[in-house]
């Protein structure tokens, strides 16, 4: 059996029909931040999922159309951003 945790943040992301993906990169001073913790919270602030960015600062969440808040914790600093995800792909550049 496999844990409920997020899959590794590497490789290509397949966008299945009807899927909602929130992805992007975390940067600080224009450079990608590896090892940042990116948390997806719903509109009420409730935690939904967490991933750790890969070498190029990238992250991906499989979500649903809704209002979300991304929170980032990293050695380079913390940040947050609210967004509206619609069906398909919503890409966010998170500069710290």
């Amino acid at each position, binding site marked *: *059996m496999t*844990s409920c*945790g997020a*899959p590794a943040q590497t490789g290509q992301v397949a966008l299945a029909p009807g899927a909602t993906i929130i992805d992007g990169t975390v940067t600080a001073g224009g450079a990608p931040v590896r090892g940042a913790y990116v*948390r997806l919270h719903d509109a009420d602030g*409730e*935690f939904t999922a*967490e991933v750790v960015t890969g070498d190029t600062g990238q992250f991906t969440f*499989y979500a649903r159309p809704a209002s979300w808040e991304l929170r980032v914790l990293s050695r380079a600093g913390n940040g947050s951003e609210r967004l509206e995800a619609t069906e398909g792909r919503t890409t966010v550049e998170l500069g710290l």
Partner: protein
Amino acid sequence: MARNDVLVSAEWAEANLATPGIVFVEVDEDTSAYDDAHLPGAIKLDWKLDLQDAVRRDFVDRAGFEKLLSERGVANDDTVVLYGGNNNWFAAYAFWYFKLYGHQDVRLIDGGRKKWELDGRPLDAEPVNRPATQYVASEQDLTLRAFRDEVVASIGTKNLVDVRSPEEFTGKILGPAHLPQEHAQRGGHVPGAINVPWSKAANDDGTFRSDAELAELYGAAGIDTNRSTIAYCRIGERSSHTWFVLSQILDLPDVKNYDGSWVEYGSLVGAPIEVPVPA
């Protein structure tokens, strides 16, 4: 037990990395995390390869656990300090597992690997070899572990705490979308269970919330502190986190983890299931 008996701070852990009699153990779902970098001197346990029976759905038996810890160099009188990723899910699972086999002194690093990394504390990739021991385990302490029949019999009499997401609790989804092969046959929850997702017990940095916040959280959700409690999730890892909170931090009596969890319960023929009534 109380918070100070079972939780150590990252600061304390760093100060005690080389202290004799203390063994740091990383338990992650992503076992490559340890190989990339780990706390200096820490050993690794693989929650699947090391702790699960290779054939049946069950844990390694007592002799298997003794062999494992002997080979890894853990002694009965060592203080075992566990940490891991994913907000200590698997470290909490291993904590419960060590207690199940009777290890006396087990602790968690509050915040686990995330807090350690965010603090910028040292990590290295040096191989760690500890001298072998003669570890002796106890028979499983089944006061800590619930099985399916007990869960069914507990409906209406014990606190049943479902720590999955609201979508899993209501049966809207059967499990995380990236694990389609590992779902139960039916969605929903055990009748009468309350839903307190495991994550509500943790701060953003992975540390546990304060005693007062935790007592308020579970009190407001309807836990009756005079009753026994069974926690469950999908396969028993997230519920270990909540088992740790309820039994070790809040010191509630008679708290069990149901590691069979929804993958088992939701596939039992004839077992009662509750789902929301359509509006």
